[in-house]
């Protein structure tokens, strides 16, 4: 898709006929989409080969707004859908774009297994610390003491430290930014595009409507200022040190960037070793 210089650089990537989108004023999801678009431009990725898969949630709606082959799947199952898509058509670049609840609550098993297998997926996890689409329930990322509709007296469960979890599961590229860090986020995204294997980018994002408001943390703008103030960039920080708290520091940066053969490479290697010439690569399976 040639980028028209006279329009918003994100515009060619949008289904403009679906604007305005449903996201609330001050919601950070749209900002992440800008970064995504910039990363696509920057990384010069072939857009025709690009597919985007979302689960269900406010973030899950990204699939419906981007002008790409895009799949709005079921809650929690973006990763296994993407796995099938990628393996059936290895030439595709497959991005998974979804919320923290979708990816780490109901979808947690797929997250760790895809990371383990090192499937070549780029996972963008917009973490607004809450289940937004359904009205503000506790997510596995909700920090302790935050108030939610299902923890009206304050959340008491510990939250996942997602970078740590996906590192333990096997991801090869892990970064975290907030929606304040637009340039860094775009850069991380394009780094992930050029990396083979399971990449995970967490974006801390405001949900003024349901998280900040209920926790008296102001609106989207207040949240962005808060991110600016509380974030600390620590590239290569040990992931067990980057857990989030209700009001504490937000460690951001690129935490992990390591090399491990991806699933397809391992598969090919094993089959070639065992079957030699008899192995037929699956690139050609596409039925007509």
């Amino acid at each position, binding site marked *: 898709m040639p980028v028209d210089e006279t329009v918003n650089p994100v515009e060619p990537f949008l289904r403009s006929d679906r*604007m305005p989108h449903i996201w609330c004023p001050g919601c950070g999801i749209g*900002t992440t*989409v800008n970064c995504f678009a910039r990363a696509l431009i920057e990384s010069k990725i072939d857009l025709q080969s690009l597919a985007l898969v979302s689960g269900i949630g406010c973030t899950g709606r990204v699939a419906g707004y981007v002008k790409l082959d895009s799949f709005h799947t079921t809650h929690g199952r973006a990763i296994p859908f993407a796995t099938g898509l990628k393996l059936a058509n290895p030439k595709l670049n497959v991005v998974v774009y979804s919320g923290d609840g979708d990816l780490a609550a109901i979808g947690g098993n797929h997250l760790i297994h895809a990371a383990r297998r090192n499937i070549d997926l780029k996972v963008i996890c917009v973490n607004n610390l809450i289940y937004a689409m359904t009205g503000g329930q506790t997510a596995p990322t909700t920090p302790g003491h935050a108030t939610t509709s299902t923890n009206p007296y304050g959340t008491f469960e510990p939250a996942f430290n997602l970078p740590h979890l996906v590192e333990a599961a096997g991801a090869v590229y892990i970064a975290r930014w907030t929606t304040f860090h637009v340039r860094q986020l775009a850069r991380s995204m394009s780094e992930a595009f050029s990396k083979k294997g399971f990449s995970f980018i967490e974006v801390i994002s405001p949900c003024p409507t349901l998280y900040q408001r209920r926790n008296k943390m102001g609106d989207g703008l207040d949240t962005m200022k808060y991110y600016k103030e509380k974030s600390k960039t620590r590239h290569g920080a040990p992931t067990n040190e980057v857990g989030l708290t209700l009001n504490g520091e937000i460690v951001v940066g690129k935490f992990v960037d390591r090399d491990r053969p991806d699933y397809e490479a391992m598969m090919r290697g094993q089959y070639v070793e065992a079957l030699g010439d008899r192995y037929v690569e699956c690139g050609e399976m596409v039925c007509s």
Partner: protein
Amino acid sequence: MLIIITFSSGRLPFLKGDPVAKGTVHIVVERCKACGFCVEFCPTHVLALSSAFNSKGYHPPHVIHPENCSGCDLCGMYCPDFAIYSKKVNTGGGK
């Protein structure tokens, strides 16, 4: 396309030493939800929320210091509603 683009051009330097606008800002007024991100994070304070309403009842930004725009497009990257962006001023005959 249904979108309406308000074009706020840079101007030529008037006095020597006057800042030169290196970019132009474009605002799609009807998409704006007045979150204020662009106004807050514009490094050169080009924007302010206007007092006018768009049809959804929001106050979109307007350009108060066009000459300061560097065309960095940070406003565009921040805007969650795809309602603003900027371009570097093109010395050639862009478009």
